[in-house]
């Protein structure tokens, strides 16, 4: 089990959302949880199974093999092409807050030794919104996976297109979807993982174009916002509307996978695809069926 509990490569998981201290309060069930227990549980509430949102770094650190990740285009960031009121300030604030230049990280790594191209969106950076740089990085990830014929795994967590870049943000839907189209043509597999939340323009482009689509439990997934829909149809929507479980029932995603099982599920899929593998299999991961790793 060591592999599951290894020290995060990118420093600590105890950031944001969590007030400082030994105890953390779950935003859903309001129970106090021993912080170390929460971290051991991959930031899933042991009481109510709430999957806390992760930054892109955190996501990669709990998903990829240790020391197996090489980031590409780390310095690539959006500018302010429209001179949009307040955008440079918001960008700067997001950079300060997250220590990242943009709302996505991408690179090459391994899961249980299986090589893959991976991208993770960061909801803490301007709501994971997709502007020019996010679109560019996702497109480059897809193009690189296509050229190398590696599997592509994208973790989405985004409110949608970044309004402050206007129609150029909208064009990122075309850019990323076209790049995924090339990937599909070339035959390299693409797994899309939708985390909380995955909405708007990100759903209407690369996130819903996965060969395999996985959702995290409880994740909000949908195109239009709940309030806009309620105003349009003049009815209240049920509580579970646009949740991962709702999407599974409606046939929109392949599976809902708890965080504790994500690595194992990805490893099983990557083994199925049979791509290149660079390290001998970790004994505790093969065979890739449940070995009693409790979900939160």
């Amino acid at each position: 089990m060591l592999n599951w509990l290894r020290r995060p490569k990118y420093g600590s998981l105890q950031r944001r959302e969590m007030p400082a201290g030994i105890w953390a309060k779950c935003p859903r069930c309001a129970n106090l949880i021993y912080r170390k227990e929460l971290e051991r549980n991959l930031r899933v509430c042991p009481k109510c199974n709430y999957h806390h949102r992760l930054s892109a770094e955190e996501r990669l650190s709990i998903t990829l093999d240790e020391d197996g990740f090489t980031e590409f285009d780390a310095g690539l960031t959006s500018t302010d092409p429209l001179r949009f009121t307040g955008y440079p300030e918001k960008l700067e604030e997001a950079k300060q807050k997250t220590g990242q230049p943009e709302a996505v990280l991408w690179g090459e790594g391994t899961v249980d030794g299986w090589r893959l191209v991976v991208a993770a969106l960061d909801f803490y950076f301007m709501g994971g919104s997709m502007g020019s740089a996010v679109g560019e990085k996702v497109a480059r990830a897809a193009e690189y996976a296509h050229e190398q014929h590696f599997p592509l795994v994208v973790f989405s967590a985004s409110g949608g297109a970044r309004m402050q870049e206007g129609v150029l943000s909208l064009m990122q839907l075309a850019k990323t979807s076209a790049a995924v189209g090339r990937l599909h043509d070339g035959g390299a597999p693409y797994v899309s993982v939708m985390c909380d939340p995955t909405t708007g323009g990100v759903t209407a482009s690369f996130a819903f174009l996965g060969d395999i689509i996985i959702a995290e439990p409880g994740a909000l997934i949908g195109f239009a916002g709940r309030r806009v829909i309620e105003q349009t149809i003049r009815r209240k929507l049920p509580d579970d509307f646009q949740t991962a479980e709702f999407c599974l029932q409606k046939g929109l995603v392949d599976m809902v996978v708890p965080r504790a099982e994500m690595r194992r599920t990805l490893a099983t899929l990557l083994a199925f695809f049979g791509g290149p593998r660079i390290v001998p299999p970790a004994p505790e991961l093969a065979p890739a069926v449940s070995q009693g790793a409790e979900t939160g």
Partner: protein
Amino acid sequence: MTKAPDLDRQLAEVEAEIDRMRRLSRDQSLSLDGEISTLETRAEELRHTIYSNPTPWHIVQLARHPQRPRLTDYVASLFTDAIELHGDRLFRDDPAMFAALARFEGQPVVVIGHNKGKDTKENIARTFGMPYPEGYRKALRVMKLAEKFSVPVLAFVDTPGAFPGDAAEERGQAEAIARNIEEMSRLRVPVLVVITGEGGSGGALAIAVGDRVLMLQYAVYTVISPEGCAAILWHDATRAAEAAAALRLTANDLRDLGVADDVLPEPFGGAHRDPDAVFTSVRDALRRHLGELRQVPAPELVNRRYAKFRRLGVLQEMGAATG
């Protein structure tokens, strides 16, 4: 110079006064023709001042004008032998999306487009030109027919956006849009897009991944409506005029940003003032661009289309940071 919002207010006041006079003259059998005529001259002067130098918000209103030519008008005047096709073969026929086989100047083409209504009744039936997933899937089905028969696709865009409803979400609105964008990006026939009115976000882009994107002078194309943008940014939808300016959504803006390839001039005061002039300018533009695109072999066409969308966006490389 009088500011745009003041002109708008003056015009609204004059129009209200005209209405009041008309009612008065009808209800009380008074003859107010002289007064009404004076006011109408005044209204026309104000409109002239406004449309001589329309703000982005005025242009949004022109793009949404209820009398603006609709898809059916373009189809009637630009094409012959149109055979409308219905349904996505999966769920139902979505009247917000039009699809047809037709001839343009004798040549076979496929026409798709958002189908806004001309009056309230039609608009309700067609959900104001906001398609459901089945609308996008119908459009895709017919675009694939175009590919099969090696005929160009002509797409007419005029929508506030994809329909925001629970049934649309359940049937995969996002997936339908994403699929269309992906498939259009690699369609092996020429794809010409004309944005005639509102280009509302993903709901517009789902039929707008073209080799050439043409825009009418007073059409708009935007990632979010000005009202929605103002509501999110400033929690105040009434600041839509400000948002309209900030979003850079006019045809000229889009040409500057590299999104629109050609801007087609409209008559003074908007397309509805002289629809025939608009049809003529659209016909000329379609002929010219189609003629050019027909010369390009399919693989080259697909490569160029990929490159066209691939380069959109503005980036910055920060030197210091490394992986």
